Each structure stands twice: as structure tokens, then as C-alpha cells.
């Protein structure tokens, strides 16, 4: 992992958004609107620091990241979450850290973002459907929270549960998945320094359609592993039954590490289309994070544990 010595910065010193918006002039025309939308939002997030993660990547635009989402709680098409997520109420919000740990705690979301220093990391995100994006996340390593909770010897896995509330999440009226959405990681995966709990993108609070107010980001796994709008983080002894695995076990494994050599039963995973690019690019093992994470799976048959 790259060490970094960039000093802390306050929100007023944040790189202007136009730097991110290299490829689209989306917000330029609506500067007033952007200011209006970002002022109260930025005030809610404590100061954060930049890191070296993904410095050489060029992030997707705000528009791309916030209008092309898979978030079945708000509908199954990519445009649905941006249209329907308005009903989500990300404040007040409590995240319950519980299960096999010595210090369980119900965290208020704002207390959580104050307790752990926020940092920005630009990660690649590869969807199991064959497309990818580059997103500047704002968050803190999940490991910090786990250390605080002090998992017991029985804690082998960590389970993440998304909010279940049909009023806030109208898509849950249809049993597309067995609600609530549940995801899981092995404890060592959850403790890995790459694994992030994210509360923002582009220096702003997380938009509702991206999983407000807090979501998981596991960049070496397919996107659906990164559970959104989390209400429970639970330490458990047995491997959790995850939502997609329960829906189609032969298609979505528990691990779901990005792997160009293990195809989805119905489509190839060898290549991906980076949103905004014309040509497909080759998909990299562990989404290009192999140097950091390959040792977690040493000796495992990745075709079996896909």
C-alpha cells in the first residue's frame, strides 16, 4: 500500500469539481444549482485528506456515476435509482455494529464520520454485468471500525445488511431479491486495508442512488458485493447467505472476486466496457488489485470458490 503524507485539508481547499469533470461539461451550465446542492452537503462531512490511491486513473463523471446504478431497492433498470431514490431518508441514520464482538455499538452516522478520519481513494469498480467505472470515494477503512468493535475469536465473517423499508425503498415491494439485501466478507477480507466504508463521492456526501448514507466498497470484487445503505454490520461465525447468492447460487458466488478466467455462466468476464469508452478493455485479475489481495486466496481453487 502506498504511504502518503499529504496534509489534512479543509473543505474550502477541496479541488474544484471542474477538475473531475474533465470529460463532460455537465455542471458548468448549472453552477448556481451545483453550489446550492453542494453547500449544505459539504457542511455535513468533516474534513478529509487525499490519498495516492488511483491518482493515475481518470475518474468517470459525476453524471455517469450518479445516473447509471444497480440498486434494485429502487428498481431494476440502471436509470431507476437516480429517478426513485428520492424517498430514501439518510438522516437520521443508525448503523448497528453487533454480533460476535466485545464492543457492540449503535453508531449514529454523523458520530461515525467524526470518529474515523475520512480519506479520498479513487478506485476502479467492476460490475458483474461487464462494465466498469472509476470513482473517487470518500470514506474510511472498515478495519478501523472493526478494531474498535473488537471481534471475538468466533467472528469469522462479517455480514452487511441494507435497510429494509418499502416506504423508503419502493423497489422492495417486488420480491426480485429476498429483502433485505445481505452481503458478507470473510473477516480478513473485511479487515483488508483496501476495504472501505464510504460516505461520499467527489468530496460530497454520498448521493441516495449510490447507497447513502454509508456503503461498502470492496474494489477487487464485483460491484454487488459492496452493499449500500447499510444499517447492520454483524460479526458472525458462519458464512452469511448473501442476497445474490441466494437468488442464483450458480451465477453469483460468495467470494465474487473479479476474475477474467471464471465466466459468469451466461456471459464472459474476460473483458469489460469502461463507461465512457468505446472499446472494451481486458478485465484484470482481482480488478487490478492482485498485488494487494491475491495472498488472501493463496491455495484456493478460484473456479470452485468463485
Amino acid at each position, binding site marked *: 500500500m502506498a504511504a502518503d503524507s499529504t496534509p489534512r485539508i479543509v473543505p474550502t481547499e477541496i479541488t474544484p469539481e471542474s477538475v473531475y469533470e474533465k470529460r463532460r461539461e455537465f455542471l458548468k451550465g448549472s453552477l448556481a444549482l451545483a453550489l446550492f446542492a453542494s453547500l449544505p452537503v459539504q457542511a455535513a462531512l468533516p474534513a478529509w485528506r487525499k490519498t495516492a490511491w488511483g491518482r493515475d486513473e481518470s475518474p*468517470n463523471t459525476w*453524471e*455517469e456515476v450518479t*445516473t*447509471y446504478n444497480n440498486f*434494485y431497492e429502487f428498481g*431494476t433498470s*440502471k*436509470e431507476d435509482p437516480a429517478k426513485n431514490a428520492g424517498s430514501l431518508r439518510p438522516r437520521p441514520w443508525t448503523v448497528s455494529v453487533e454480533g460476535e464482538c466485545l464492543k457492540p455499538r449503535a453508531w449514529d452516522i454523523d458520530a461515525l464520520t467524526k470518529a474515523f478520519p475520512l480519506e479520498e481513494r479513487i478506485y476502479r469498480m467492476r460490475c458483474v*454485468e461487464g*462494465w466498469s467505472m472509476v470513482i473517487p470515494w470518500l470514506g474510511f477503512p472498515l478495519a478501523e471500525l472493526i478494531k474498535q468493535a473488537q471481534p471475538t475469536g468466533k467472528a469469522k465473517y462479517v455480514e452487511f445488511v441494507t435497510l429494509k423499508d418499502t416506504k423508503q425503498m419502493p423497489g422492495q415491494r*417486488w420480491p*426480485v*431479491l429476498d429483502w433485505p439485501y445481505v452481503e458478507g466478507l470473510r473477516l480478513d477480507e473485511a479487515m483488508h486495508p483496501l476495504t472501505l466504508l464510504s460516505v461520499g463521492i467527489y468530496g460530497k456526501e454520498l448521493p441516495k442512488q449510490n447507497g447513502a448514507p454509508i456503503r461498502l466498497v470492496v474494489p477487487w470484487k464485483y460491484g454487488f458485493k459492496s452493499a449500500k445503505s447499510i444499517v447492520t454490520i454483524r460479526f458472525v461465525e458462519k458464512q452469511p447467505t448473501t442476497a445474490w447468492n441466494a*437468488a*442464483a447460487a450458480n451465477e453469483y458466488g460468495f467470494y465474487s472476486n473479479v476474475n477474467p478466467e471464471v*465466466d459468469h455462466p*451466461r*456471459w*464472459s468476464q*474476460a*473483458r469489460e*466496457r469502461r*463507461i*465512457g469508452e*468505446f*472499446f*472494451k478493455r481486458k478485465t484484470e485479475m482481482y480488478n487490478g488489485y492482485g498485488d494487494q489481495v491475491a495472498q488472501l486466496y493463496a491455495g484456493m481453487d478460484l473456479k470452485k470458490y468463485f
Partner: protein
Amino acid sequence: MRPVETGVMAAKDMAFRPVAAPFWSRLSPRTLKVLLFVVCLVPLARLFVLGFSHGLGANPIEFVTRSLGTWTLSFLLITLAITPLRRFTGQGQWLRYRRMLGLFAFFYGMLHLTTYLWLDQFFDWGDILKDIYKRPFITFGMTAFLLLVPLAVTSNDRSVRALKRNWARLHKLVYPAAILAVLHYYWLVKLDVTQPVIYASVLSLLLGLRVWWWWQKRVPAAKAGNAVAPALASRGRQG
């Protein structure tokens, strides 16, 4: 599906009750055909308009491919609806438009295939062949398209005359093509199969009608010549 059922009911009523002549009845068949031709190009025109107005979303290639695919399916279903329309309304004029609609199904299918080969795979033939071989949904889609090729090729009057009775036989290939096309869609969808199920239901209705008519025709024939067991024939009459 409910909308289709009510549509059929309305058509049935029209056959028995005199209704005010719709405006298009005053247009010549030729004008109508030209109008229909233009209407059939609207889905394609829409994609161009969206393309130039930044309206294809974050993944335009996927948007275009999906749109062309579902329009291919829609045109296949519309084409297959012509014969039922003719029978329910008792008006043969519907048949005038069937060939054009069928050719539009082929046209959109061809564009759909082109987006896959060109925009999606960029003519990587190795990967394309592997896809056709390994992925059932690609296999089905490709087969459906190949079944439509001879139909498009023999859609001219000369072929109709030359092939005589075999022309109608050959053009029954549209049935397996439509079934494969719907399966192609069903298999592609990740989890929410609502859309493909709607297409499948309409197709089942359209094909079911044909099976029903075929069965109805068979029953009197069986009664006349006593080739089929009487019990079977009476069961058919009751059903």
C-alpha cells in the same frame, strides 16, 4: 396479457357492430403503406435523436443494442398479429402490410446484430464464435436471426410464385425464430424477467391461437374421415 385481450375483444366487436369509419379508411392503401413505413422507422429515428441530444445514458452502446433488440421482438410480434387480426376482423386488408412489417423485424434484427458484432465485440471473431458456442442466449439470438434470413430473401413476389406451396411452409420458420428470440431475451436478463415474460406471453397468445385454429380444423376432418378415435374428436369439440 390484459391489453392484448381487450384489443382482441375490440376487434371482435368491430366485426359484428357497425362503427364509425376510422379516418384511415379514407386513405388509399398505398398512402397507408407509406405512412406505416414512416411509422416503422420511428424507433430508429428516436435513437438518432437521443444520440445527438446526449440522451442515451451513461452506456449508449448497451442502450442502442437493447433498444434495437426489443424493437426486433416487437416487430416480430406485430407481424405475427396480422393473421389473428385478419381472422377476428374478417378483413383481408391487413395482409397488405404483413410483408413490410416482417421485413422491418428483419431490418431491426440486422441492426441489433450489427451493434453486437461491431459496437460490442468490435469484430473480434474469435470471441464472437466463442460467444455463439458457449452462451445459450447468443446461440439462440444468432439462430433466430439466421432463420429470418431465408424469409427476408424470399419475401419478393417472384419467390412467392416460384416456391408455390413451399413458400408458406418455408415462412413458418418465423414461429421458431420468434420463440428463440424471446428465449434470447429471457436468458440475457440478470434477474428481473418482467419484460421478457411480457413478450413471451404475447407470443404464447399469438402462437396459441394458431394451435387452436389448427386443432379446430383438424376435428371436423377427423370426424369426416374416421381416422382419429371418436373420443379424441369429441374431447376436442368440447375444449
